[in-house]
């Protein structure tokens, strides 16, 4: 078969890239080889547009045992224990087929964790949709949300990993391009770590798990293109997940690893058999010989091209010591799974694929896996489709504004979503969904892991660099309010088409902002995922980096988010903060009350933010806080309302020169609300750390009052907040 420009175009390879393939092979590729290159060199697998900038991210600290480049990052958590964690997106499949798209997103990230030898103990998800009341797309957005939630629930619940938290946001820019980012975390001991490396000449390459079918072919390439009208035809590109099979695979893999016969293992995710074999070979500097006739197949008559590119789920490739294969097979037999030798490790560095007695592909592993083209794509200044100055506005009903914000889609309770997730299985969940950070204890130690996911597309659209910094700060603050110390991060970069210079500029600035902030907060990024081409019919999503931060704490119940008793002092650690007219334009008030977006994100002083976090953490760890909650979306008034949802409110006074809308609803960072019986000790800590602390007032039963501006009974506010999402879905 001759390779025509049409064939290249359908494989999304450029003529230059094709030239590079010919140079590597020293000849024209055949069709199978072209397919193999096309998936490995897709944006999704090769990060070819982002890699030059990803290098700017901090990746080291004394705790980092494994940085980017493996299936997941690994951090030392002391006592001989370690955590593996990573976030990954499944945006494109979730638009085409929400249930399976989201479900296999969970499945993929779980395999990334246990392929390293770690047992997954927590999942979180960051999901974004178009507005549920969108005039044109509302009905579809509801279907997508329900499908995605149900897919995550189906997969995680059956697998038996708790989904302990996450975040949900709505913007019209996600109408044709929902975001599904799934974070997973697992634990193991240092000596239980496995890598995806095909070492040892003559060792056996073993295929385990589900059979290979025709599903998901070119999934990685699909995730590297914009959506057009034709995308609706791409449903067969979406894989189908089987969480039961994955659960068996987990138990069998962890048990097989304990035999000592396994030298390397990698899951078959994006680009399936191709990616797992060439990456394992490349990392070890070896070659791999594969015989496709031995691959367990679900369908008859599959071509080498189809088998190499299939993204059938719940499959792993492992390398076992020659002569010890039977030990591995025995474990898989016990769990009722296929395990067959499909090849061996060779010394020539070549991925050599056999089919019906003939060699059908012959490609050097290293060039295929690591020498994908690198693009330093041109970038200008970030795309900014909004006014820079504020519109005129004046509120006539501030209590009414608060009520409106509490039912706004980004702020209202998401219990409709997370009650569909089993968040208590494994009995480690110390703090579950709906709180600032989730906490999972490690039973074998006195340590718990706290984690938080955050993203803010609005801030990042206004200023990708500052928005990314604010995101890092917020994530770390979420950990501080439960008393945890952040130690590492993973990022998911969701952007539009990088071939557009103003979109590329968003990506570059967000990465640089994130790099600066992660250095400042000492949270190295040990891996993550880049999802580009999130555009539909030329409309890009808001630039949406999502960060997952993990931290450590001594196992203990954290303070509650809500006030617990009347008569307690309420202190705002960090002070009232301030804003400008322009800096108010990215707030939830601007969005939900005014229906506008303008200006800049709030200003962040990272030095001050860090001191505020230290103060909050010290107050919490010393047991001084009966409740603690950070100020974020919706500003101080919304944060105080959230603290009041348990029925105990506060009578607060604000001494400020700001106009009331700004004072109540500005989203300036570096603020944490605590209630305490020991205000003097809280103030002492703040003073020592040179952090402003404002005594807001005293808690009281049943009402929330803020100066002369807001006065409301709590039960109706709480009921409206609790039922808003379900109401919107039912409308």
């Amino acid at each position: 078969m001759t390779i025509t420009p049409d064939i290249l175009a359908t494989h999304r390879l450029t003529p230059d890239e094709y030239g590079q393939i010919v140079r590597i092979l020293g000849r024209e590729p055949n069709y199978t080889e072209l397919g193999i290159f096309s998936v490995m060199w897709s944006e999704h697998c090769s990060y070819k547009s982002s890699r030059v900038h990803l290098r700017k991210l901090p990746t080291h600290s004394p705790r980092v045992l494994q940085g980017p480049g493996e299936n997941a990052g690994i951090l030392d958590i002391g006592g001989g224990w370690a955590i593996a964690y990573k976030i990954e997106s499944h945006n494109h499949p979730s638009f085409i087929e929400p249930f399976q798209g989201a479900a296999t997103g969970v499945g993929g990230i779980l395999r990334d964790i246990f392929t390293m030898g770690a047992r997954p103990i927590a999942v979180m998800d960051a999901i974004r949709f178009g507005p549920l009341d969108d005039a044109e797309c509302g009905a579809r957005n509801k279907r997508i949300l329900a499908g995605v939630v149900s897919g995550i629930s189906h997969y995680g619940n059956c697998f038996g990993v708790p989904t302990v938290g996450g975040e949900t946001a709505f913007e019209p820019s996600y109408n044709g391009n929902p975001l599904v980012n799934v974070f997973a975390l697992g634990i193991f001991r240092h000596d239980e770590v496995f890598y995806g490396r095909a070492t040892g000449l003559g060792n056996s390459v073993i295929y385990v798990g589900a059979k290979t079918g025709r599903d998901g072919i070119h999934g990685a390439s699909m995730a590297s293109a914009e959506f057009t009208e034709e995308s609706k035809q791409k449903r067969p590109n979406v894989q189908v997940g089987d969480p039961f099979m994955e659960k068996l695979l987990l138990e069998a893999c962890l048990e097989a690893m304990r035999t000592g016969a396994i030298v390397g293992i990698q899951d078959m995710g994006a680009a399936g058999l191709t990616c797992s074999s060439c990456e394992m070979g490349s990392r070890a500097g070896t070659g791999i010989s594969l015989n496709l006739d031995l691959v367990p197949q679900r369908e008859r008559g599959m071509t080498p091209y189809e088998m190499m590119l299939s993204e059938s789920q719940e499959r792993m490739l492992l390398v076992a010591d020659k002569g010890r294969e039977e030990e591995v097979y025995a474990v898989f037999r016990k769990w009722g799974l296929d395990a067959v030798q499909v090849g061996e490790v060779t010394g020539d560095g070549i991925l050599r694929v056999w089919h019906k007695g003939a060699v059908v592909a012959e490609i050097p592993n290293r060039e295929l896996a690591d020498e994908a083209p690198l693009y330093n794509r041109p970038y200008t200044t970030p795309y900014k489709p909004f006014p820079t100055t504020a519109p005129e506005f004046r509120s006539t009903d501030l209590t009414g504004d608060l009520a409106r914000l509490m039912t706004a889609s980004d702020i209202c309770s998401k219990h409709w979503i997370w009650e569909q997730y089993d968040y208590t299985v494994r009995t480690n969940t110390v703090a579950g969904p709906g709180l600032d950070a989730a906490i999972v204890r490690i039973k074998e130690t006195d340590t718990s892991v706290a984690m938080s996911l955050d993203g803010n597309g609005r801030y990042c659209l206004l200023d990708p660099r500052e928005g990314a910094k604010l995101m890092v700060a917020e994530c770390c603050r979420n950990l501080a309010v439960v008393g945890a110390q952040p130690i590492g991060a993973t990022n998911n970069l969701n952007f539009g088409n990088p071939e557009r210079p103003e979109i590329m500029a968003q990506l570059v600035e967000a990465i640089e902002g994130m790099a600066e902030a992660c250095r400042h907060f000492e949270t190295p990024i040990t891996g993550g995922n880049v999802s580009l081409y999130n555009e539909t019919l030329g409309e890009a999503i808001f630039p949406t980096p999502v960060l997952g931060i993990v931290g450590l704490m001594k196992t203990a119940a954290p303070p509650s988010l809500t006030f617990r008793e009347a008569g307690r002092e309420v202190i705002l650690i960090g002070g009232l903060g301030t804003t400008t007219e322009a800096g108010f334009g990215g707030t939830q008030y601007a969005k939900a009350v005014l229906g506008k977006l303008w200006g800049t994100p709030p200003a962040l002083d990272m030095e001050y933010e860090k001191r505020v976090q230290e103060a909050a953490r010290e107050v919490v760890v010393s047991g001084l806080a009966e409740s603690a909650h950070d100020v974020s979306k919706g500003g101080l008034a919304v944060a105080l309302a959230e603290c009041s949802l348990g029925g105990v409110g506060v009578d607060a006074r604000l001494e400020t020169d700001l106009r009331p809308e700004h004072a109540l609803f500005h989203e300036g960072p570096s603020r944490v609300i605590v209630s305490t019986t020991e205000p003097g000790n809280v103030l002492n800590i703040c003073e020592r750390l040179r952090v402003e602390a404002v005594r807001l007032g005293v808690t009281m039963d049943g009402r929330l009052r803020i100066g002369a501006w807001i006065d409301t009974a709590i039960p109706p506010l709480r009921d409206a907040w609790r039922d808003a999402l379900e109401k919107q879905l039912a409308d």
Partner: protein
Amino acid sequence: MRFGVVVFPGSNCDHDAWYAVSRNLGHQASFLWHQESSVGNTDAVIVPGGFSYGDYLRCGAIAKFSPILGAIRRHAESGGLVIGICNGFQILVESGLLPGALLRNRGLRFVCKPVELVPATLNSPFTGALRAGERLKMPVAHGEGCYYADDETLARLESEDRVAFRYVDNPNGSLNDIAGILNEGRNVLGMMPHPERATEPLMGSAAGLGIFQSMVDAFAGAAR
């Protein structure tokens, strides 16, 4: 007392149950693989939650054919204690050890949240250590937990005092707010809520311990 925790392919609360009775209750516990045909020296069997055999066909429908189920049946027939939790309850119902059926939740969605139960009888080896009217807080986490039985069966369960627990605020549409039931011999309990997830304050509640403690007390009483 020796607890045996059954492990089916797809069980995912097996370790939680083991941890609850061994670490938090302080008794012996071991695992029983689904292909075993005897419960060995186990005094009480726990059929844990999860998705046995992927819950293909119907929750618990395949598990009832496993070798260990025969062993559990014999254990129960000879008066041994059996507690089925969540998927375990579904399996006991499918295998006929308990009457009725567990249907899709009334809301048609999986539901995970803390609920409150009250013991509906103290006359059982699973509730003997509880107090009348005591509210027990523990999580539910299931998609198919709506207890259903025909009128006659329901009337029998009630008249024979075989409803073990009722929900205070019914999360799934179960008839008569039933959260757990006993067999005729009162030595087999099935319940949808998860007592093993409520066995220490850090989990948000330790109320589930009372159920396992009741079993220990009953076993010690019977042995005396």
